[in-house]
């Protein structure tokens, strides 16, 4: 199964945002942002788009899938 790779931490730091602030901006809990940054939760398309919008970029720039090596 492909693994979710995310650059959320990178973008968040660049914008000098706290997890709590980003969570408020996209309407989720802080825990969800933490899980997303660690690649432990696959967001819905809406949430992914909301996050990308906050960062002023595209969904593909923030999230990508990496195929597991066999």
């Amino acid at each position, binding site marked *: 199964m492909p693994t979710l790779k995310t650059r959320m931490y990178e973008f968040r730091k660049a914008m000098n945002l706290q997890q709590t602030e980003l969570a408020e901006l996209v309407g*989720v809990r802080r825990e969800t942002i933490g899980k997303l940054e660690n690649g432990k939760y696959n967001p819905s398309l809406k949430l992914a788009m909301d996050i990308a919008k906050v960062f002023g970029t595209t969904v593909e720039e923030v999230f990508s899938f990496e195929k597991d090596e066999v």
Partner: protein
Amino acid sequence: MKKTLYYSDRVKLEKTFLGLIWLISGILGFFDGIISLVMQAASLIACIYTLLRISTAKMEDADEMAEQNMNRAKALASDYMQIVYCCLAIAAILFLRNFELSIGLNEMIPNITFIAMGINQLIVGFAFRKFEEG
């Protein structure tokens, strides 16, 4: 200013704590005597206090991850409860078919219902916590 009750804390109270209270109440229901009655009354008070606290607190809304984890926890609890019921049914068929039981169903059913509800809620509470911790 009201303190916000986080969603995970709400689940802890609603599912884990109340589940434990249902379970204890159900078990205590099998015993006669004043101590059992006092403990059941204490459980009821704790239950009412918890429900009041939940209903009056300012609450954090569940987001999509919380909803997904709650659905997974409920599905898991349902699966486990089905296994428990199947095991009980098989045990009853295998071991109790030769016995003629005389039990007061009017007393048994409420207690067993409380126990089953308690176990179900406890599984939901613990599973949700496990999923949230990832």
